[in-house]
């Protein structure tokens, strides 16, 4: 139950983490962590506060150097790469940070254009503007939001704008760090729907860190559980429920977990009826 079963073939693994060890000073966050993310799936990553969900994401995207271990993204090792090689991999993924991390001095549309200008300087300004405009609309923002500055947007709109920037380069892999945190339930459900529909339309692989049980039930294909410094289990929710780990049981069978199950069942019944 500790290591994820290597059932899928190597080509279908987008992110492959083996024996990862990370930490700050004396404090070890991960030790011997293994994880596979398959192509085209939405993988939910859950775990209690301080179990290093964000640290895992930062290690995969290269913002933090692990103490030891291997990380492969798209079949290529990402640790200790030359800057030019790292850039080639970087343009194949998009990241939505927790607070949106929009550049506050630029408008939403300009924020979307930043990665495009950085990686493809040959694109002319008119095309950039158009790309900025349709990306903004595709993430469910009203077109009027494009010329606005981040400070003028609500929390939910900032997340969508951040998603528009994450999708600017049409990435194959998308990292979402608690996308629904701080959103109202309606906004959170709409964001889940958006993630699922974009995933289907663009054929994305999604690495999704969340605390939101509704998100897990609604859109995640598989869920990875972080505890005791490693991934203690990966699987669909029914598979996880069959496991006898106290944290997993409490997480999914606690009052909130049961409410989320009831909600998702009611939703499905509605769809049928």
């Amino acid at each position, binding site marked *: 139950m500790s290591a994820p079963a290597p059932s899928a073939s190597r080509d279908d693994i987008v992110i492959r983490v083996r024996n990862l060890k990370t930490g700050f000073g004396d404090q070890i966050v991960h030790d011997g962590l293994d994880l596979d993310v398959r192509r085209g799936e939405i993988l939910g990553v859950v775990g209690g506060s301080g179990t290093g969900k964000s640290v895992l994401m930062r290690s995969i995207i290269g913002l933090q150097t692990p103490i030891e271990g291997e990380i492969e993204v798209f079949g290529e090792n990402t640790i200790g790469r030359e800057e030019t090689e790292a850039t080639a991999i970087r343009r194949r993924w998009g990241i939505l940070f927790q607070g949106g991390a929009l550049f506050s001095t630029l408008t939403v549309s300009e924020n979307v254009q930043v990665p495009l200008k950085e990686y*493809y300087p040959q694109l002319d300004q008119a*095309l950039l503007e158009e790309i900025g*405009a349709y990306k903004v*609309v*595709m993430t469910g923002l009203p077109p009027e939001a494009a010329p606005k500055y*981040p400070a003028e947007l609500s929390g939910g709109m900032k997340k969508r704008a951040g998603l528009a920037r994450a999708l600017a380069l*049409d990435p194959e892999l998308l990292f979402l760090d608690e996308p629904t945190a701080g959103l109202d339930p309606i906004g959170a459900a709409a964001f889940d729907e958006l993630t699922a529909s974009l995933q289907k339309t663009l054929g994305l692989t999604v690495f999704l860190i969340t605390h939101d049980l509704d998100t897990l039930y609604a859109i995640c294909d598989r869920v990875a559980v972080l505890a005791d410094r490693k991934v203690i289990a990966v699987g669909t929710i029914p598979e996880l429920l069959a496991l006898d780990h106290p944290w997993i049981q409490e997480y999914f069978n606690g009052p909130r977990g049961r409410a989320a199950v009831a909600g998702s069942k009611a939703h499905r019944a509605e769809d049928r009826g």
Partner: protein
Amino acid sequence: MSVLADFERVDSDSGGAVLRFTGNLSLASLGDLPDRLDRVDGQVARIDLSQVARIDTVGAWVIHRFARDREAAVEGLQPASRHLFDQVVAAEHPIELPPKPESPFVHLLAEIGDAVFTAMHTLYGLLGFMGATVIAFWNVATHPRRFRFHATVHRFEVVGVSALGIIGLMSFLIGVVIAQQGAVQLRQFGAEVYTINLVGRITLRELGVLMTAIMVAGRSGSAFAAQIGTMKLTEEIDAMRTIGVSPMEALVVPRTIAVVTMLPLLGFYSALIGIIGGGLLCWVQLGIPPITFVQRIREVVPLDDLWVGLIKAPVFGAIIAIAGCFQGMQVEGDAEQVGRRTTTAVVQAIFLVIVLDAFFAVFFSQIGWI
């Protein structure tokens, strides 16, 4: 992995041509395709995408834009790609172009008007803030329990004690430079001994306090603006208000007291170090022994000079503290504002200090303290 996007033109007899695309229609392999599409002329009836290996939203957008402008039909897409293409088309929305810039003359006028308005608005706000500070002081004076003793003492340390090193070094060097320049000029008249008058009077009367005020504005005024501005952004100020703590009493009063108290002390210290620097130069370069230097200082520097410096210092301190706190409180919106407001706080404080110094100079000479 990426096969560059390309297209060929196939003319058919039924009027209009067909553009047949090959390769990957994706951002990374787009190359100069948009430019080349712009150069296609003549009628295009159909766009055939059946040979395309991969399409992403940017590719779809470029094709859609071309098809829309040339009224061509798009065909041959796989169902999944068709879905993506339709989503991109559905997201199309006319973009508003930024308004045309006005003529340079109107622009200049607008800029000047804007600057005047902002300056007046800031002055008005600053006056209001001074009033609010006075009220806060009154409230603290009538309710002494609300006085934050620890916060104030902590500010004493940050504003005063921690500044001793840098202010000492600066004053020492300024004393040396004044003495050296004075000696060079006065030597022409054989009046080198007046270097002592110059150093003693100018440091006590003007430079000690003025340079200290500028240094404190840079060190502490900026820190106040940045601290309070950041607290404003993180809603700490709002949290204080809801708990019933007045930010004016908790933040502004201790900082103002600290600067008002510390600036006379630092200014006096600065003048002393400046005199020591000047004395050292006189000893080394002019051969005036320290004991003679001190005697001469006692003869030529009137006590009034000390009072002039010490009277100005608290006023300068109040200006620096209030400008810093005021600009901090004005922060709204984003992190960039914190930087801008911090700069404004320092510029404003130094400017007001120098303006007031000029007024003080006129005032003291009118009452005969010259």
